[in-house]
């Protein structure tokens, strides 16, 4: 097993010592009847106050599992955190008691989910569900919680909030439902908001509205945000930095501009090239050949080597370490320099 070595560089340095949130070499496995799947294999990333980190990857790359590990809401069994640290304000959450971790949830780190229809409880009105957090966690009275719930629904721009507070989740449109979800996550004014594919279940036009809302709220409330997505288009306008995940590892980590300009990992390069371009007619869409690996049998060496156009013998034999490329960029590829130079021209 390899150890990632993300070195702090000027671009990602923290204002006052440690990062707000930092993952160190996190390993999570799923123990199932068919065997053990290594879902997270040494993920390290960090988040500073007020910034937005996008975690990018296809389904099964481990981006949501990482987020659930941070929240402490993994379903155990089958999921087990095998090793690593999750530092929040310097405290390792993984060594804390369940009660301490519960206090962190919602209050310090909050999360919104992909499908708001199933993520909201179908039998309670939305106002009740937003207010529940306030009543249970902040000790508010029923009336105060109701008033605050209306304010929160106004904040996320739900029209006629006061009238809609008694409505049930199924009575809202997809976009409005996701706004309810956001209002609920913001109830206790968390410092970190984890948005797990917040727009995947929505229409394209609504996607843009929700992303704008999230970006505005993040700025207004001075939160830090982890934006989990598989959609490169969503990331560009909102994120400061991007971490690209593949087979439970971070394969590339860079600021948005330089990553789009010159990806330094063949996987990222493949992802960017598979976006259709409007300015080229009659193009054939390029794809990444093959399928993501089975997490019970991750390929030797670099897990991406069976799909990689740059593959050499060393990729099959040796697990690549994070190569530091300067400007806070890293790439877990033996040929990171070549790939970047290739992409640049």
């Amino acid at each position, binding site marked *: 097993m390899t150890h990632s070595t993300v070195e702090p560089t000027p671009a990602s340095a923290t204002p006052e010592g440690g990062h707000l949130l930092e993952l160190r070499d996190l390993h999570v496995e799923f123990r199932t009847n068919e065997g053990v799947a290594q879902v997270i294999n040494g993920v390290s990333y960090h988040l500073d106050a007020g910034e937005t980190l996008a975690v990018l990857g296809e389904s099964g790359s481990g981006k949501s599992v990482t987020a*659930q590990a941070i929240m402490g809401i993994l379903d155990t069994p089958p999921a087990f955190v095998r090793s690593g640290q999750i530092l929040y304000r310097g405290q390792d959450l993984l060594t804390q008691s369940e009660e301490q971790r519960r206090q962190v949830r*919602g209050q310090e780190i909050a999360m919104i*989910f992909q499908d708001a229809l*199933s*993520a*909201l409880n179908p039998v309670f009105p939305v106002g009740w569900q937003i207010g529940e*957090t306030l009543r249970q966690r902040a000790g508010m009275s029923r009336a105060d919680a109701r008033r605050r719930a209306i304010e929160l629904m106004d904040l996320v721009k739900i029209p006629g909030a006061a009238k809609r507070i008694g409505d049930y989740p199924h009575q809202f449109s997809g976009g409005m439902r996701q706004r309810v979800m956001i209002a609920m996550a913001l109830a206790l004014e968390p410092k970190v908001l984890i948005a797990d594919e917040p727009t995947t279940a929505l229409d394209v036009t609504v996607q843009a509205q929700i992303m704008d809302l999230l970006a505005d709220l993040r700025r207004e409330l001075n939160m830090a945000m982890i934006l989990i997505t598989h959609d490169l288009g969503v990331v560009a306008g909102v994120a400061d930095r991007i971490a690209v995940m593949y087979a439970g590892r971070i394969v590339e980590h860079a600021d948005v501009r330089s990553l789009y300009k010159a990806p330094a990992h063949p996987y990222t390069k493949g992802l960017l090239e598979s976006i259709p371009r409007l300015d080229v007619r009659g193009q054939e869409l390029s794809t990444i050949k093959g399928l993501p690996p089975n997490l019970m049998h991750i390929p030797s060496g670099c897990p991406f080597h069976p799909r990689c156009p740059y593959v050499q013998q060393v990729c099959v034999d040796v697990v690549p370490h994070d190569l530091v490329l300067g400007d806070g960029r890293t790439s877990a590829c033996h040929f990171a320099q070549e790939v970047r130079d290739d992409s640049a021209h």
Partner: protein
Amino acid sequence: MFRYILRRLLQMVLAFFGTTLIVYALTFAGQGDPIQALAGERPVTPAQRAYLTEKYHLDATGVGGFFYRYVDYVKNLLQGNLGESLTGRNIGDILQQAWPVTVRLALIALAVAIIFGVSAGVIAGIRRASIFDNSTLVLTLLVLGIPTIVLAPLAQFFLGVKWQLFPPTAGSDPTFYALLLPGIVLGSLSLATALRLTRASVAENLRADYVRTARSKGLVKRRIVIVHVLRNSLIPVVTFLGVELGNLMSGAIITEGVFNIPGVGFNLFRGIRTEDGPLVVGIVSVLVVVYLVSNLVVDVLYAVLDPRIRYE
């Protein structure tokens, strides 16, 4: 909602006439000579025959005569007159005596199903694959596998006769204690089904996305289970129990027969055995109404419990 209930009530009227017609036909259409059936082995004098023919409108024959008598029967029924049994007793009076006993028995059975079935189901659902879960699974399988016609005499013999923990039979005007064992026997089937249904529903809801959301809100586990999971899990269970109460209220022929309880099922059974057509039709007509009403109540209750259900 109001329009839905109104439409359902209209449907109920149709269902009522349909079912009573079928029951009436099944009971009387096949009879050879109803007057001789009434008299049994004894000879019937011409005067008696003329009187009875007039009384039961037997002068009209064929399909026309059948509908003539059916309409006549329904007319009386709508005036609250269920007629007389072949033994000359007023069927309304019979039901008035039998019904309270059956209702008490049904409520005991339902209470048994709720207290033991639902709570054990909740525990089994939360602790899936535990010893408790597995043993309830085996026990419910056992109960579901044994028909009441076997279970009732077994319980009566061991608990009533051999170990004398309960009165073996109830008799007329039974006490609560005398109805307890029959109630448990009658409720055991509902208990087993309720347990399985609750277990499956709780286990499924524990994995639901909204539970993950509730956890991410930082709620304590007890609240997540009691408020969020149970509220959702019990929707199908309440529906089942509602339908089940309708079933139980319409009498338990076997249980009431074995334990000699003078309830609705007992009287119905006697009516069938002695070929007492008017008694059978009278009781079944009332049972149809009970069943239809309890089903409507369940449907309305379902909409109240689950806001996603809207009847148009």
